[in-house]
């Protein structure tokens, strides 16, 4: 199968400022999350993948199109949802999406028809005749998604699609993206600071750090697997249960404490000795008047992975 992205030794500099240094990346079709702190080079990479910027050196292909030459053809295959506000003032929702289609080179009537269709799909059916000035943040994000979908692209580049959304809006947006992937098999490259979004949607992850790709691959392969670690949450007094666990050779690790209010709930990370039986947790708890309400084998999440890679801890 043709790779989604295949670039080699790509560098880019804005004048004297180096934004990307020798980035080589090969991604399979599917869902990809890009994470990195501000200034790590994420948006520069996106713009190069989109053919908007030409790399200072290096090159490669996206969906089989050369990123240096066929940028117009490439953008016909890619739908881009920018992070910036970037709407045309005074237009109505459906006009904006149709404009996006026109700009992608669709015939005018198809663009118009298709605009209605994608607006319905992203859940803006009732708002499509309103002016953009009246749209809330959440609706603007959906509108921008619709504008990126209008020409039925093979690949979606989403830059911070859930930024500024409340939980309901965020869930709805993520559901739409998930549904889209499931129904059509489109590839998605998702760029966001909200790592939970990436964990939920993406199979592959690219961690960027200071203009280079620090790690790339499937999330499962990148995770550090540690057996015999459990996240433990219990209700009831803290000390007796902790003491009992420590007496049983379980070493405990506590998350940073909150300043003021003592809570009725405690939680800790427990590393258990070999030959440990999980029923012992409940047994010890019962003896120290605690009630275990959560027990999870600990797996490294994306946030921990990210800090391990970028901060070395």
């Amino acid at each position, binding site marked *: 199968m043709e790779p989604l992205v295949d670039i080699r030794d790509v560098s880019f500099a*804005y004048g004297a400022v180096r934004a990307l240094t020798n980035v080589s990346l090969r991604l399979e079709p599917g869902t990809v999350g890009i994470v990195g702190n501000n200034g790590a080079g994420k948006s520069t990479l996106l713009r190069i993948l*989109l053919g*908007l*910027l030409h790399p200072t050196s290096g090159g490669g292909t996206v969906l089989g199109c050369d990123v240096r030459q066929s940028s*117009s*053809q490439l*953008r*016909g295959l890619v739908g*881009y949802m*920018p992070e*910036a*506000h*970037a*709407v*045309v*003032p*005074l*237009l109505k929702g459906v*006009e904006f999406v149709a*404009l*996006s289609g*026109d*700009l*992608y*080179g*669709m*015939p*005018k*009537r*198809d663009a118009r028809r*298709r605009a209605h*269709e994608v607006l*319905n*799909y992203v859940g803006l059916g009732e708002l499509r005749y309103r002016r953009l000035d009246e749209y809330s943040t959440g609706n603007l994000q959906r509108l921008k998604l619709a504008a990126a979908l209008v*020409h*039925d692209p093979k690949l979606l580049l989403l830059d911070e699609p859930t930024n500024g959304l409340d939980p309901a809006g965020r869930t709805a947006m993520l559901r739409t993206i998930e*549904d*889209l992937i499931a*129904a*059509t098999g489109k590839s998605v490259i998702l760029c966001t600071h909200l790592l939970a979004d990436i964990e939920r949607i993406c199979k592959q992850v690219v961690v960027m750090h200071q203009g280079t790709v620090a790690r790339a691959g499937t999330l499962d392969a990148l995770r550090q697997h540690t057996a015999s670690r459990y996240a433990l949450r219990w209700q009831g007094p803290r000390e007796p249960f902790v003491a009992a666990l420590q007496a049983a050779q379980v070493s405990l690790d506590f998350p940073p404490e909150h300043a003021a209010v003592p809570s009725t709930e405690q939680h800790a990370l427990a590393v258990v000795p070999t030959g440990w039986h999980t029923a012992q947790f409940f047994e010890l708890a019962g003896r120290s008047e605690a009630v275990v309400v959560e027990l999870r084998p600990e797996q490294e999440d994306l946030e921990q992975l990210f800090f391990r890679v970028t901060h070395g801890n």
Partner: protein
Amino acid sequence: MGIDAAHYHPWKTNPGGKLGGPLLGAWRGVAAVVRTTLLQLMRRKAYWAIYAVGISQFVVYWVVIYALTQLQLPSGTQRGMLNTFGFSIEAADPQDTGYLDFMEQQSYVVMIMLAFCGSLVVGSDFREGTLPFYLSRRLERRHYILGKLIALVGLIWLFTVLPALILFLEYGMFTTSTDYWRANWRVVPSILGYGTILGVVLALWLAAISAYLQKLAPIAVVWSSLFVLLGRLGFMLSRETGIREWVLLDPWKDLRLAGRLCFGQFRTAGDAQLSATAAWILICVSLVALLALIRRVRAVEVSA
């Protein structure tokens, strides 16, 4: 099928309805930029207010032509009134300057309107990050610039060329024969020529100024300096020093002279001599404006 309505549908293209190739696609993009720009303007109430002012002048001309072709006034009165508006009573007199005068007067309203719409049509794209949106579609820099310029030219034509052509049609219709049109057919290319000069020059200058200054206040300061201050200064200089070339300091005068070049009619012989220089001034300044505009758009693409 009913159950399926909420799901994603791939784009089923109609026959011939695919994404255009590089050429066709870009052309569709340019057309969309033009349409959108005009639409944005027409959504502004201030635009309609200014258009109403502009069109009131057209109504006056319409009434005058109607009255003069239909009413049987004493011939002296009629001739006098016609001359005031630059038309002649004889249907086939090639010395008509009525259309030219009309377009010149319209262009004052055009100037005021352009001062207002520069920040909306071009400035806000730069200020609010809409330009990267345009360029992240299948549009190149040159297509964006072309689209905006065509839109501005179209806007200027709505004030000048279109009503002038309507007046020409009206005159011919009310004279009840086709003689007027036949005798004066040269008026049409002249109107179009003058309109093109007016449109291209003003659009280029406005787009360049708006791309750099973006906000309304500085655009208005520069625009009014260009078209009001330079005019007054040029007029005083030429009158007080007696050197006629000074009037060319006034961009309006330059545009008017270039327009008269199209119509082939000049008030004085002096004007005729100056007109070629005026045309050259317009061409040079417009080229500078175009280069400045291209530079500015390129800078945004890299930095934003």
